[in-house]
C-alpha cells in the first residue's frame, strides 16, 4: 500500500483504524501516520511485550526490548513481505531476536533450568477459548506437550532462549552430540505436527 493510499484510508476511516487489517496498520506505521501507528502498537503490544518478558524475565528490560521491537518495525516496515508470513509472526520474530540479543550480552546463563517446567506448561496449556480449535497452534501445543521431557527442554532452550547446542550440553550435563540430537528430533516431531497445513512432508 502506498503512503498516499494510507492517508486516504485514514481520512476515510477516521477513528476506525483499529478495524483495519494488520498490513494496513504496518504500512501506516512505516509511513509515519500517528493514528495508524498507535493502532498498530495497541494491537500488538501484549504480544510483543509477552515475548520480551518471557525471554528476558525482567519487566524493565522487557519494556525496552518491546519498544525497540516497535522501533524496528517502524524502520523496516517497507521490507515486510506478506508472502513470508503474518505481521504478527514478523513482529514476534523481531521482538524475539532483540530479546535473545539481550540474553547473549548477559554474563549469566540465558535461563535457569528450574524455570523451564513453568515455561513449558505455559506454552503447552491451551486457553479455554481455543480449546476446541483445530488450528496449527493447537496442534503444535499438543505436539510440544507430548515430546519427551528432555527433547522439550532442548527445543525450548534453543528456540525460546537462543541457547546453542553447546550451551545446552553444559546446562544439561550431557554430551554435545546428545544435545544436538535432542534439538533435531524434537523439532522434527513438532514439524510433523504442522503437516500438512503449513509444511510439506519430504
Amino acid at each position, binding site marked *: 500500500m502506498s503512503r498516499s493510499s494510507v492517508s486516504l484510508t485514514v481520512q476515510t476511516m477516521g477513528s476506525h483504524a483499529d478495524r483495519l487489517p494488520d498490513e494496513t496498520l504496518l504500512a501506516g506505521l512505516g509511513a509515519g501516520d500517528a493514528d495508524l501507528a*498507535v493502532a498498530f502498537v495497541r494491537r500488538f503490544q501484549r504480544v510483543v*511485550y509477552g515475548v520480551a518478558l518471557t525471554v528476558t524475565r525482567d519487566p524493565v528490560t522487557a519494556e525496552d526490548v518491546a519498544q525497540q521491537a516497535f522501533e524496528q518495525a517502524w524502520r523496516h516496515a517497507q521490507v515486510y513481505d506478506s508472502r513470508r508470513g503474518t505481521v*504478527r509472526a514478523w513482529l514476534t*520474530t523481531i521482538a524475539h531476536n532483540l530479546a535473545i540479543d539481550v540474553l*547473549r550480552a548477559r554474563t549469566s546463563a540465558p535461563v535457569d533450568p528450574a524455570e523451564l517446567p513453568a515455561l513449558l506448561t*505455559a506454552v503447552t496449556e491451551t486457553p479455554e477459548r481455543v480449546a476446541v480449535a483445530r488450528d496449527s497452534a493447537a496442534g503444535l501445543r499438543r505436539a510440544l506437550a507430548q515430546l519427551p521431557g528432555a527433547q522439550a527442554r532442548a527445543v525450548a532452550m534453543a528456540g*525460546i532462549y537462543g541457547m546453542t*547446542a553447546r550451551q545446552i550440553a553444559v546446562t544439561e550435563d550431557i554430551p554435545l552430540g546428545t544435545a544436538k540430537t535432542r534439538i*533435531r528430533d524434537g523439532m522434527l516431531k513438532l514439524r510433523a505436527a504442522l503437516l500438512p497445513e*503449513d509444511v510439506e512432508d519430504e
Partner: protein
Amino acid sequence: MSELNGMSCAEFHDSAAELALGVLTGRERAEALAHLDYCEACREHVRSLTVTSEKMLSLLPTAEPPAGFETRVMDRLGLAASAPQPLRHRGWRPAWGHGFSPRRVLAAAAVAVAVLGAAVGGWGLHASTAPAASSALKAGTLVAASDHDHVGQVFVYNGETRWMYMTVDLESGNDTVICQLVGANGHITTVGSFRLADGYGSWGSPAWTGDGPPVGARLVTANGTVLATATFSAST
C-alpha cells in the same frame, strides 16, 4: 582466510534444526548456509523447520505491558499524536543489523533468495557435494587494530548469490560501527553499519557491490578509526 569444506546433506540434516532456530554458530552455520546455496531439497527441509520455529514463538504467552507503554513507544518514534510528525530519514540502511538479528533472518533469506532464483530460472542445481559452492565461501578472522587480539569472524560468499556475515566482540562500547570490504585493487567499499551492545554485535547483508571477491574487511568507527581488520587470502 580459509576455505570451508562442503557439507553433505546428511551433515546438514543433523544441523538443520539448529539453523532454523538461529542457534547454529560460526563455521558450522556458514557451511550450512553455503550448502543451501546448491541443495534445493535441504532448502525445503530448513524452510519447513523455520516455519515450525516461528509457529513455536506464537505459543509464547502474552502479557500486559506497564501503564504508559503505548505513549512511550509513540514518543520514541517521534509520532506522539500532539507533536508534529517529522519526516523520517530514509537513507540507505543494511538489510538487517543489531536488533534485527540475522540469525533466523539469514537462514530465511538464503531460502527466499534460493526460491526466487529458482523461480526465475537462474538457480543452478548442483550435486550435493559440489565443491564449487564451498570454494565460494571464505572466512576471515577479525583482528583488533589496538592489540591484535582476535575479536570476531567474517564470512563472505561470492557464488551465484552474494552475502556476508560478521560477528564481533570488542568487550565494550555501544557505538555504531561501519563494515567495509577491501577489494583486490585496494578500493574500500562501505557495506553497512550496525550498533554494538557492550562491544558485541553481529551483522549480515544479502549482497554487496564491487568488482570481484573482496580480499579483506575492516570495521571502523563513524569517524573512520579502524577498529579491526580481516584478511582474506587464497591459502587454506
